[in-house]
């Protein structure tokens, strides 16, 4: 479980949960989440280390390289990510309800 659930992590998890069978590579995720390489790769690294993501190598590279590294949610990761996103959603909802109550005239 990641130590802190940040907005950036939430963006990555939302992207991954949107299609749990999809294998993403770093650049794709950067473009989708609008995160920089300096932010995205440490998040991916932590998720892999925590067993939420599996990292594989693309079968063949037509660019002459060793092949892209692909990231995909694991079963555990999918459940955990959904759980995190749901709790963040609930927290946001309760926060906005509190704000609503506060600004409502007596």
């Amino acid at each position, binding site marked *: 479980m990641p130590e802190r659930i940040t907005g950036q992590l939430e963006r990555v998890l939302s992207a991954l949960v949107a299609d749990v069978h999809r294998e993403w590579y770093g*650049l794709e995720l950067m473009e989708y989440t609008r995160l*920089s390489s*300096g932010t995205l*790769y440490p998040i991916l690294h932590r998720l892999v*280390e925590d067993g939420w993501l599996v990292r594989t190598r693309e079968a063949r590279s037509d660019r002459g390289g060793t092949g*892209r*590294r692909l990231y995909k949610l694991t079963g555990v990761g999918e459940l955990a990510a959904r759980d995190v996103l749901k709790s963040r959603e609930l927290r946001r909802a309760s926060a906005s309800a509190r704000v609503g109550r506060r600004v409502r005239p007596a």
Partner: protein
Amino acid sequence: MITAVGLAEGAIGGFFAAVALSVVKSLIEGEIHGALEDWLKRRVRAAAAELPQELAEDHEDEWMEELAERLDRPRLALRYVRGLSKAAREIAADTERRLRDLAPADAERESETEPVGRTLAIPGTPLLVYVPARAASKHGESRPLSGAEDR
């Protein structure tokens, strides 16, 4: 007075000058692009070198592969490479922290897998009894056999 011959010479000269200029321009552009590409690759290697050894090679391959897709857009390539150094430092710090967190747990597990028993003397007899650590802890290690002392 401008003659037709003069005009033709001027046009031909201008044409060759334009061709020469475009050749020089493309040579310079190619040179700059090549130099930029080399510099970006060096930055990727330098960033990967900040990672722990077991991760460095794989991440360098990953980042080189993705950089190759951005080389035709130099601004994006620059932005991509700029973040890698920060990413490498964070990954290295995270790896170090995980190893540090793991170390005490490993030591504990090791001591569990290598139980050290206790040899106890039975009072009033010359007999010694070996009590395995697991049995000792089951019966409460803090409470030794009555009157028994370690010899």
